[in-house]
């Protein structure tokens, strides 16, 4: 408790004794909330078209978003130091659940990803690990002198590798890579030496080779299809060929809302889930895509602003990692649909139809808001 340090008080915009705004009082960050609401509204418009104008889908998505925003609000109320205190325990429980999934998980589509909870339904532990892993890496690094030396880096790497490997074994390569990247971002933000990063890039080549060796047949197929989608136009390459056709045929201005032929005649697969950006690109053109990217950029910029203004190392690293991981989702999804990355099954955050990912993402933004709105009470 170093509350009495004068320089701390100076750095606050709102004096402790001053009037507390409404958003501050309910622990909501206005600009971030605004950005999210714009994104979600645009997303619903595209989803309506991508789901073949199914009002049913919209209602279900809206109710999921409502749950997501509620979770965000709840998460925002919890002060960052509580998160910090819980982090190692959450990590232990989460890793335990991942082991439980491998041992007793429910199987669906050839992968064990879910845990059946009696009376509650299915639960996907890997989803919450998307938040817990960057939190754990941040927790560990916050206690060390930064930039980290070799030993803390190795230990932090180990901390994120354990859940990564467990998830990869389910098998869910996409999620495991995203979780690894979340941990890596926390490391990067903590000041990980550039030499280490350079070494990592050099090591990536043999690593990719060995990854190929352990990949399942369907995963290899995805990579091969990514490298040459025309190779199998009616089979595995169908998805990517059709999504590129949807995007390209949209042109600069698009075909107009609800007038995308690729989406509405069912040529575009998964048009309301993973491939929804293709619907937007087809109907709103390059201009629409740029507008959406601008919204994402605004949200990310606000997230980084919150991170830079956070008052302790843990909060800074968590906020930065959550924000940049959010971008990784955006990049991987759009990269995959437009054909510059392999198909990995990552939804477009807050636009794609889907339940679990909305809740996890909004929980992350809740933590960001908590960090931003609890500042005056926080001390390092």
């Amino acid at each position, binding site marked *: 408790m170093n509350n009495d340090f004068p320089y701390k008080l100076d750095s606050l915009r709102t004096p402790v004794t001053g009037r507390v705004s409404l958003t501050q009082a309910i622990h909501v960050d206005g600009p971030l909330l605004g950005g999210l609401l714009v994104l979600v509204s645009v997303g619903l418009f595209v989803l309506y078209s991508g789901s073949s104008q199914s009002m049913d889908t919209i209602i279900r998505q809206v109710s999921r978003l409502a749950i997501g925003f509620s979770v965000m609000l709840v998460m925002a109320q919890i002060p960052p130091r509580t998160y910090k205190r819980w982090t190692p325990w959450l990590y232990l429980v989460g890793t335990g659940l991942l082991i439980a999934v491998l041992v007793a998980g429910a199987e669906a589509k050839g992968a064990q990803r879910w845990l059946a909870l009696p009376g509650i339904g299915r639960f996907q532990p890997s989803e919450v690990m998307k938040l817990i892993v960057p939190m754990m890496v941040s927790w560990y690094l916050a206690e060390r002198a*930064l930039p980290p030396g070799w030993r803390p880096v190795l230990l932090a790497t180990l901390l994120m590798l354990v859940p990564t490997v467990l998830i990869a074994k389910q098998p869910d390569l996409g999620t495991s890579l995203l979780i690894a990247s979340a941990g890596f971002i926390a490391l990067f933000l903590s000041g990980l030496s550039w030499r280490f990063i350079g070494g990592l890039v050099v090591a990536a080549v043999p690593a990719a080779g060995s990854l190929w060796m352990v990949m399942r047949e369907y995963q290899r197929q995805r990579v091969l299809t990514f490298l040459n989608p025309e190779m199998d136009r009616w089979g595995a390459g169908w998805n990517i060929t059709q999504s590129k056709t949807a995007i390209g045929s949209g042109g600069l201005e698009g075909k107009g809302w609800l007038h995308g032929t690729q989406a509405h005649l069912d040529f575009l697969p998964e048009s309301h889930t993973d491939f929804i950006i293709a619907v937007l690109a087809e109907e709103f053109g*390059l201009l629409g895509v*740029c507008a959406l990217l601008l919204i994402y950029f605004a949200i990310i910029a606000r997230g980084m602003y919150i991170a830079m203004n956070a008052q302790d190392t843990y909060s800074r690293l968590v906020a930065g990692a959550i924000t940049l991981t959010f971008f990784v989702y955006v990049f991987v999804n759009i990269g995959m649909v437009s054909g510059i990355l392999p198909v990995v099954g990552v939804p477009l955050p807050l636009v794609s139809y889907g339940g679990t990912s909305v809740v996890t993402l909004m929980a992350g933004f809740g933590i960001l808001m908590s960090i931003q709105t609890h500042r005056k009470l926080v001390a390092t």
Partner: protein
Amino acid sequence: MPKPITLKDHYRETRVFARRSVVGLGFVFLLMLVLVARMFYLQVMQYEKYRTMADENRITVEPIAPTRGLIMDRNGTLVADNRPSYAVSIIKEQCPDVDDTIRNIGELITLDEAQIDRFHKRLEQRQRPHTPVALKFKLTEEEIAIIAVNQHRLPGVTLDASLVRHYPWSETLSHAVGYVGRINERELKTLDATDYSATEHVGKTGIEAFYEDQLHGDVGFQTIETDARGRITRVLERTDPAPGQDLMLYLDLPTQIAAAKALDGRRGAVVAIEPETGGVLAFVSIPGFDPNLFVTGIDYKTYKDLQESRAQPLFNRAIQGQYPPGSTIKQIVALAGLYYGVTDWNRSIYDPGFYKLENDNHFYRDWKKWGHGVVNMHQAIVESCDTYFYDLAFKMGVDRIHDFMLPFGFGKRTGIDMPSERPGLIPSRNWKRGALNQPWYPGETLIVGIGQGYMLATPLQLALSAAILANRGKLVKPHMVRNIGGTPVTDAQPPGQIELKDPNNWELTIAAMRAVVHSATGTARGIKEGLTYDIAGKTGTAQVVGIKQDESYDASKLSDWHKDHALFVGFAPVDKPKIAVAVLVENGGGGGSTAAPVARIVMDAYFNSLAQDAISDNQREPATSEQ
């Protein structure tokens, strides 16, 4: 447990984090530029390519098959029509497991291995996903019902209807009308690719093949928008197909049926021609086959049985069968003798039962062992005296017989509107030198005079010669089709007339032919009983195997396949002929006893049919009689 230096590092940590955040945000910005660049590449630089691909995805130009023209007889009775036929098909994308589905269908209706094999072959060949692939064609009413009732538990299984050729008269008209079959690879190369893009069948034989162009019609097109499942969402543009033209034949179905029935159980052919027009009234080749078998694909065993049968049901005897005409050409040889002044009606010879050439030991036998005695030409025709015609032929020489017979339609294709007609053969010295590189022997001329030896004719040629005789020399060309799409066929009649030096000889020859049927000694006298009209005819009995010098023909000693062919040509009524007929019964024995009665039945049927027409024409204004 922070060490004391942690506090000192606080500023540095903040600075490092701020720097890294800016770098991170810079990465974000850069990667977003990468995405925008990618989108720019796809949406602006490659726009044309993807726009085209999107249109190709959804817009399909689909050909629409024209409806094949109908074929009917002279009374308007349909002899070839189109009926809906159902096939059960599978859409692979909509069915959970193809093999399971086939097994399930197999439990409901019978499927054989070959059908399943062909299904898999078709499945591999299909060009787009979500298109149905046929598993079994030509479902019965019962099979359609079973599939329809169970369709809810067979996802991806569809029943497709299409129009398929149907021949209601089956075997009766198999050789006249012919049949259509699935287009094979060889035909695919010769047929117009655009015109046949939606057509599955093409005429293979008979009228169906000869009039393919007229029957087929013109293909139509529609530009359609489909979804990924191949379902049509919109028709953007449509050009209707032009249906094929209907054909009306000269054929009289009651006469055809009577002819087929009269031959029933034997092998042979009947051709009946309307002398005035050359129109073919009956065209029968027995045995026939069910042409419906060929339409949707005949199974291998049935086809092999048909092909290997000794009775040759697939062989069109009427235009492809070349037989020695025997005595059925004697009246024409007689006209030739008169024409060249070699003989006249008063000249008589003595027939001891054989004919002998000087310096030749060979006995040229008459069919009547003890001979006809003294015969003039009239008697020679009536009694079919061989010796008289040996003598006449010898005096005339083979080349003059050849020259005189050609205009009667022998020795060359008649030009009937049917495919695969054979030309027959009238020998001459030139022909033998060219074809066999041998000189002509005088004895060969003798047997040409009685329609044996090298001479060959199709039943159609025999019927045509009878029609030309009935016309008193006016030439006609045999024709199957009377009008196309309601327009009469105009090229039917080539002008021409066989000129005799003495036109009286037409009537005298015809009188002798009349006596063949109506006199007490005529070889076809057996059919005159109860006749209400006059028939002029000539019988023929053609040898299939040579009889040795010291043997005589004994039918009971020969196997059925070596017995003589029975023939008859004739026309009626004698004064104003309405029908000329040729009958051939393979290994049937005597022409008078076997072939002539068939001709009588055919003529009776035709006159009966004409009488029916007259009644219905008088009674009803628009004739709408259909069987």
